[in-house]
């Protein structure tokens, strides 16, 4: 079936089988391998992308179900060479070791801050509880998201 899915603001058209999962549809698009394909059982959260602004696990959504919706992947975070505050936070506070969970964590963090610009540590921990990180013990990820929240608050004041 021919499918039109909007990914990072661009229309991606491809002929795929109905059984194709969204994670593979995204990763088979040139330049979009940042979304990671992990456990395939909706447990690990490496494949999290935003669908109409909400984080979803793209291993458990058919590509066909995404037609007509706006998908955002990790590639959309950096703009004109400027990293998104959540990316800067992960960089500043060393919130990744191997990096496999990072795209899912970043997109989950982005969605959290869009909805709640000043989350508590507890709110951050709940928000990322759908992602598994086997390196950091989560401490630095939580700190990085908090850093991003504070950085965004400061930037907003300056503007």
């Amino acid at each position, binding site marked *: *079936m021919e499918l039109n899915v909007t990914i990072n603001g661009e229309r991606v058209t491809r002929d795929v*089988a*109905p*059984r*194709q*999962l969204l994670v*593979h549809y995204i990763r088979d698009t040139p330049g979009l391998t940042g979304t990671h394909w992990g456990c*395939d*059982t*909706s*447990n690990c*959260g490496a494949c*999290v992308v935003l669908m109409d602004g*909400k*984080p*979803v*696990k793209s291993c*458990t*959504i*058919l590509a*066909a*179900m995404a*037609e*007509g919706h706006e998908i955002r992947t990790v590639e959309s975070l950096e703009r004109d060479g400027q990293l998104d505050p959540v990316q800067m936070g992960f960089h500043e506070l060393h919130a990744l070791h191997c990096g496999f969970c990072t795209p899912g964590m970043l997109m*989950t963090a982005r969605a959290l801050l869009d909805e709640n610009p000043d989350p508590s540590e507890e709110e951050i921990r*709940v*928000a990322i*509880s*759908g*992602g598994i990180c086997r390196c950091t013990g989560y401490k630095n990820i939580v700190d990085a998201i908090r850093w991003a929240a504070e950085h965004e608050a400061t930037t907003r004041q300056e503007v």
Partner: protein
Amino acid sequence: MVQTPAPFEYERATSVEGAIAALKQRGSDARIIAGGHSLLPMMKLRLANPEYLIDINDLDELSYIREEAGEIRIGALTRHVELLESELLARHYPVFGDAERVIADPVVRNRGTIGGSLCQADAAEDLSAVCSALKARVVIRGPDGERVVAMDDFHVGPYTTAVGDGEILTEVRLPLRSGAGSAHEKVERRAGDWAIAAASAAVWIDGGTIADAGLALSAVGPTTIHVTRAEELLRGSAPSEELFVEAGEFASADCSPVPDGRGPVDYKRHLAGVLAKRALRRATARALHQEA
């Protein structure tokens, strides 16, 4: 190893009637897909092999939580996150908030639906116990119209419901009665996991007496366990700690857990009793506005 479902045909429904017509035409080969967070994993494992999927995610008319005719009515496509954030449910039946906070994780809760959870009919699923304790009724629509079914008649066996070929679950109805209190207690191995055991309780208190009660258990039997003996015990009695302990003993005795990676039978029976007692205690405190 790539986990991909076996091939199937796909259509997007544009109306409930259209979905029912497609279901009728395709018979038992067809399945409804909503959030897909139960069905797609089953299809990847070849435990479900539908040849035709009817996607109902565009049917906004099935997504609502509203008060109508002395009931709270919840559309089948209402997602877990919407149940968690509903002020109407928080006010009347806080048991939903208790359960939703421990169902999977926030990202999964953005997709999964109440209709999908109930139709999956997994004995370990939390909302089935919640709806059973609240004495919910569900609306099933087919080519010949609607029928309203009580929860006890809805779950007919493991992974099996009263929804027949050509039919679709459209709504969950919760009776609104005065003096209500409700709570859900769950123990899981780690955040987001299925329950080792869980208990949902509801009480309706009138003048210091429990006018009616609901108690149901998750994960300790082939289906959701409705502890009717405990409900009979509670009905007409004044709430007390001794009463809740006795109701918990019925819960322990009347469930039928199997030993697995989550624990042995004795432990699960013990847990079912303790959680039933705690859920009743909290439901009663809420009914009396005495929650700590």
